[in-house]
């Protein structure tokens, strides 16, 4: 771990301004991802700004009938919130399928959105990785690499890593928006699609955030109702990242929405795939996974995604 300086700032706008001002700044919330990465020197911030005192830890109702979730609301508090469990059960289920209870107690909403990939080569500083070191190359794309967990769609010739968050997949299916404040004090809202760029030839860029910009919260629109499910498939029964996960909102008229986790650099959803929901899992995946570029080792994810959705749609 490289030596770093540390300060606490209890106002989001000031934190953003300060982060812009001090080179090499990073925010720290729960620290469950950032500290691990700092120990491996995958993240080497020169300055840490602790934002745990910013008071962004409420869940409040919005004028539009939705909810605004503060960036520091813990994954545990969010998943257990009565309103979330009643009106957005897919989100609650996604949260509780992630990590462990100890981690969820510390993990924040903002930090969860910005957690970094679990690509094994990203985690090994001796390996070339474009995400860690732009231009270094990608060990996962070389012959003989271990790619079973990696992405099948939305990837590029520079990076095939996935975004590992479960929460973000549910937020994507719920049309949530990320709310931020810039160093100049400007606020803006981004859909999750806008928030997460595709890797292209800059896999090191993992969000649309500008330097210093801080997440203040996530806004959920008014409840969409319907039957909401989150199915996370993994090798062991708990405490593992998804091989594939499916977030589903199914309304009584046979319409609905589907988002996938574990397959792409961002929670994966397409409107034209949603429109196929009445035609079954195969029709949905034909659209949703159109253009997929799996490796030999992870091509099973295409079948698995379809199977998982089929299991959710089956009336048994």
């Amino acid at each position, binding site marked *: 771990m490289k030596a770093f300086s540390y300060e606490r700032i209890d106002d989001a706008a000031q934190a953003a301004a300060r982060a812009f001002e001090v080179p090499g700044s990073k925010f720290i919330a729960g620290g469950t991802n950032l500290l691990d990465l700092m120990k491996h020197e995958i993240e080497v911030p020169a300055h840490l700004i602790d934002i745990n005192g910013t008071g962004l830890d409420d869940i409040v109702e919005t004028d539009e009938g939705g909810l605004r979730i503060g960036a520091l609301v813990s994954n545990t508090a969010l998943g257990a919130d009565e309103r979330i469990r009643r009106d957005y059960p897919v989100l609650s289920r996604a949260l509780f399928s992630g990590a462990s209870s100890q981690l969820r107690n510390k993990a924040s909403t903002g930090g969860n959105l910005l957690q970094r990939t679990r690509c*094994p080569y990203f985690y090994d500083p001796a390996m070339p990785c474009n995400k860690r070191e732009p231009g270094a190359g990608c*060990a996962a794309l070389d012959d003989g690499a271990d790619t079973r967990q990696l992405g099948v769609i939305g990837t590029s010739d520079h990076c095939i890593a996935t975004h590992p968050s479960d929460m973000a997949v549910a937020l994507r299916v719920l049309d949530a928006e990320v709310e931020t404040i810039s160093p100049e004090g400007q606020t803006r809202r981004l859909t999750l699609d806008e928030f997460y760029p595709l890797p292209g030839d800059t896999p090191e860029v993992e969000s649309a955030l500008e330097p210093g910009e801080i997440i203040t919260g996530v806004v959920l629109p008014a409840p969409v109702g319907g039957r909401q499910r989150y199915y996370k498939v993994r*090798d062991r*029964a*708990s405490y593992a990242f998804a091989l594939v996960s499916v977030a589903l909102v199914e309304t009584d008229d046979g319409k609905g929405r589907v988002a996938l986790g574990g397959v792409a650099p961002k929670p994966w959803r397409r409107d034209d795939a949603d429109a196929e929901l009445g035609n079954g899992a195969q029709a949905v995946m034909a659209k949703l996974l159109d253009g997929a570029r799996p490796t030999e080792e992870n091509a099973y994810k295409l079948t698995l995604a379809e199977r998982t959705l089929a*299991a959710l749609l089956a009336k*048994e």
Partner: protein
Amino acid sequence: MDFNQSADENLFDRARIIGKPHTRVDGALKVTGTAPYAYERHDVAENPLVGYPLGSSIAKGRITRMDATAARSAEGVVAVITALDIDELPRPESNVAKLFGGDIVEHYHQAIAVVIAGTLEQARAATRLIEVEYEETPGEFDLDDAWKRLQDRDVVSHVGDVDAAFERADVTLDEIYHTSSQSHAMMEPHATIADWCDGKNLTLWTSNQMIEWSRQGLATIFEMDPEHIRLESPYIGGGFGGKLWVRADAVLAALGSRETGRPVKVALPRPFIFNNATHRSGTVQRLRIAANKDGRITAFDHSAISHTLPGGSGEDAVNQTRCFYAGENRRVAHHAIDMNLPESADMRAPGEATGLAVLEIAMDEMAEKLGMDPVEFRILNDTQVNPEEPEKRYSDRHFVECLQKGAEVFGWSERNKTPGSRREGQWLIGQGMAGAYRGAPTLDSGARVHLQNGRLIVETDMTDIGTGSYTIIAQTAAETMGLEMSDVDVRLGNSAYPSASGSGGQMGAASSTAGVYAACVALQGEIEKRLGIESARFENGRVVAAGTDLALGEVANGEEIVGEDTLHFGDFKDELEIGTFAAHFVEVAVHAYTGETRLRRTLSVCDAGRILNPITARSQVLGGMTMATGAALTESLNIDTARGFFPNHDLAGYEIAVHADIPDQEVIFLDTQDGASAPLKAKGVGELGICGGAAAIANAMYNATGIRLRDYPMTLDRMLDRLPGA
């Protein structure tokens, strides 16, 4: 004391304490976090410096340049030792991979430098400042390639005429199977504090299963008199064979202490557990079985390969096939292929765990081909002699009873016999079983006991790696001396104590308690001498003989009396086949759409001689079955076949079973005693549980789905295409 013939009726047959369910004597220390583990021994090694290793980032080649200038001047750094600073250290025979020194790189994450600093963070940060240049040479990393290239395999043994038997047979099987490379993944990493400040006497507080072997190993490595080396390893957070020998933590801590004149501590970072330390090699296995229509096996032909660094022996998966089941003809061959992966070595039930994972699937397949019940098929092919050497009989083998008892308790007769036809909602339900065999070796073991004011202190270099050694040793001593458990203190894992078997090969329980028994008998002799009596009995805390009836606390007026002895196991054992046996029964659910596999219940019935303590023994079998579950379903050190290393080198990427994977497990011990094994008539159980368990799961999955998987781990991607879905 010599153990030159099978034990007759003795005091352990009338046991008060042995065989009873005593909770662990060290349990309170463990659960309160006060058992001192190696890395925390600041009570004895004050204010140590911290060492952090740097691993090679190539698998094979040569280091052409190292520059540690920046690291040396980094904040808090006291010393940096690089591989180019010293000649290659000599290796004990037991170590295959290079330990440290010299420019040759044999495997990924071979230790090539250590930074010694004031804090862990300083040391770790400075390792990143060391510049290294390599000259890389291509290596061999792909076992499947090696299997394809392999022409003639070394035949280990050939009895009868296998080829003729296959020609004559009514029913035959011939299949190829794979097992994955696996990590011990013990909770406590390899860790050592070393004090070599005077450059003469080396003391190590370390985490090691085998104290005397390691002391001798260190003497070889550092070319010094073993008398100047002391090892302490009283508490060990798991080993599973990964801590049998000296590893980089001990070597680097010792070098660091010699260099700095301060105590130095080194724990291997988690990724080093996978690529720097040892692992169990994956295997490719071909298994052929021939049988007559009536179900009698006439031949086995089992060949396997595994990987090793040059000079090692790999994972011998064929050994149990030589002796487990009847059949006149058999041929087994194991080929250890030189490859440039990290060192493969012993892991819990080395050989049997992977061999039985395959043999017991093959037995299931064969039973199906014969139209027989797999339990009946195994009963029919039981043997009471080693089929390769029929004059060598099993000392005590109750495998058939394990099978029968298991079938009865599990409700085997009720099972659905048509694979893939029992469904509950979206889950396919299946049941399967497998047999298990594991040898029960013993090693000479010594101990010393001190009696003073009625308290007994037992000292032996035996280790407790979480197994319960402290408890069964206290039981043995209390039983022999007629004392209560509360009168006995047990001290383990110190090279100053008499040498015992250590923990490995499931030989610790039977061996070390025998040594303690011998020492207690020696103590009894000393007491008799002191009192001038003969043929004394030791009971209820008293010594009783003609004309004498004295509390042990009053024997020497507060003076200490010492007894010491070593139990030597005699050659007569070589004429017998001494083993442990089990039958596992498993119910699984496999998701009809996704292929997720979840255990529902397991039952293991074990025949392992006298069970010294049913609580600690049961834990061993539960743990073994849990590890078998990982081996069956999730555990795999994936190999990057171009770069030559295991990329999933942390506990997120290498998935061991978690609580949610383990349902109700039941263990039944048959009430058996094996007098040929040891004075206590006990054998080991530490490795029996992992044997056969993976195959029981495989067979249950087949029963659930009708899809036969022959490659471990049996992850969903191997069967997804063939599952029914709706």
